[in-house]
């Protein structure tokens, strides 16, 4: 839903010769500036600095939802702070990878990818940068999803096979388009 309807910008600060380019600090700054201009609230609070070697304070941040394919590129962006370098790593989320300026990156193996969508035909990775309450999932009929299992005795006269399935009754909605930006990026050459 976010890939189909949310507004986006292309990363343009990189040097891989494509459009969009790979992710750079200037693109991160563009996103933060735009969200802040639109009065989006950050989602996470500051993590206060502590007197520990190799750590750095983490700013209050918007969340950036990205593909795990971007992990290498993220580490090359100026201002990269791995979650192991947080003063209190216990405050990082399990799926969190890093913080860059006022963005905290959450990565997933099923992060959004637009196949062959760059100028040179490369895959484009959609990084959804969201402020607080930018989008929501509305549950229908009192549930969001159901996992259904029918044991063999109920699934056929010879009780040979079981079946499983799931159904969902929910609607994802962007509540304020100004508080979400899709930063499209390719991988570094």
């Amino acid at each position, binding site marked *: 839903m976010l890939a189909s309807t949310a507004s986006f910008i292309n990363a343009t600060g990189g040097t891989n010769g494509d459009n969009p380019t790979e992710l750079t600090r200037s693109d991160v700054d563009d996103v933060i500036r735009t969200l802040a201009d639109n009065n989006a609230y950050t989602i996470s609070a500051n993590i206060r600095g502590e007197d520990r070697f190799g750590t750095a304070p983490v700013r209050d941040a918007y969340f950036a939802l990205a593909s795990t394919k971007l992990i290498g590129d993220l580490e090359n962006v100026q201002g990269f702070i791995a979650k192991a370098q947080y003063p209190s790593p216990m405050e990082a989320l399990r799926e969190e990878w890093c913080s860059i300026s006022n963005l905290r990156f959450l990565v997933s193996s099923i992060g959004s990818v637009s196949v*062959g969508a760059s100028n040179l035909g490369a895959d484009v990775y959609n990084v959804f940068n969201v402020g607080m309450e930018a989008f929501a999932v509305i549950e229908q009929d009192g549930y969001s999803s159901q996992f259904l299992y029918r044991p063999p005795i109920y699934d056929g006269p010879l009780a040979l096979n079981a079946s499983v399935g799931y159904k969902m009754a929910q609607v994802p909605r962007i509540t304020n388009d100004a508080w979400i930006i899709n930063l499209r990026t390719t991988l570094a050459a």
Partner: protein
Amino acid sequence: MDNTIIQQGRFTSTGEAVELQIRSDVDWMRVINYTIADADQTAAIGVEYYWQRGMAADTGISYLKSNAAAAANLTNAMASGGFTLLDTSDSPLGPINATITAISAAAPPVSTNTGVNALSAGDVVRLTNVAGAQQLGGLDFTVGNATLSDTTFSLDYMPLIVAGTTGSWRKVNFQPQFYPRHRAISSISAAQSAVVIMTVTHGFTVGQEVKLVVPAAYGMVQADSLQGKITAINTATNSITLDIDSSAFTAFAFPVSAIVPFSPALVVPVGQAVEGTTSNLLDDATINTSFLGMKLAAGTASPAGANANVIYWVAGKSYSVSNA
């Protein structure tokens, strides 16, 4: 037939291919051309068609009817013009064709390709790496309404550009999953009520609220982030008219090749058509338009039939499928 889910239906052919939405994925399908079955046929002609999972795309088996000819009542394996499984959330792109030899400096620009492009008017095409016209790379375009042949297709809603040379294209088989969708802008007029033209057939309706995203590369920066209501649409020009006064804005100019990389200008749907306090607030809710189904090819020897043929169909799901 324990555990089989069956769906059935009927349609009258328009002579064009038909896409049927079928629940739970389909493992087999039978189609009967009632019009052909209802009359004597002097030449062998398709009357019934069958497909099951494991057959290649666009194939199937046809049964021919001919009451008078010697070649009557034949069973025929179809090499093409048959059944094709659809999953619109999967494989939305066709293969890359590095066949573009030129894109003209015209309005609309016309792309010339080697070989046969096999496109139809209204198809959506994504261009990549067009020498001399890199600004078109990665963008989608509705093509073929103005000019279409085996070796040419027009970028229907694009303004005049500097000519490009070699490049690649691929067909975008299905729309993005959710409606309403953001669309790239090809032009915005400077007028009391701004008219916005988009590169792909937009699908918007009067009353919807949209936001304009206009990066500096396009010139008309005053329009950036403005929100407006659609007051009119024009399907011929693929434009929407907004209640935004752009008459004093800097002229909109589609970027040239040397500007790459840049972000495209966009129309972003942000609100629903609420004309009164009693309107349905969800009438423009974001809708998942994906579906599973079957595409039936058209023609006298194909399951979707010829124009005005009445077609009956039934589809089912097998308990298990074994294609060793």
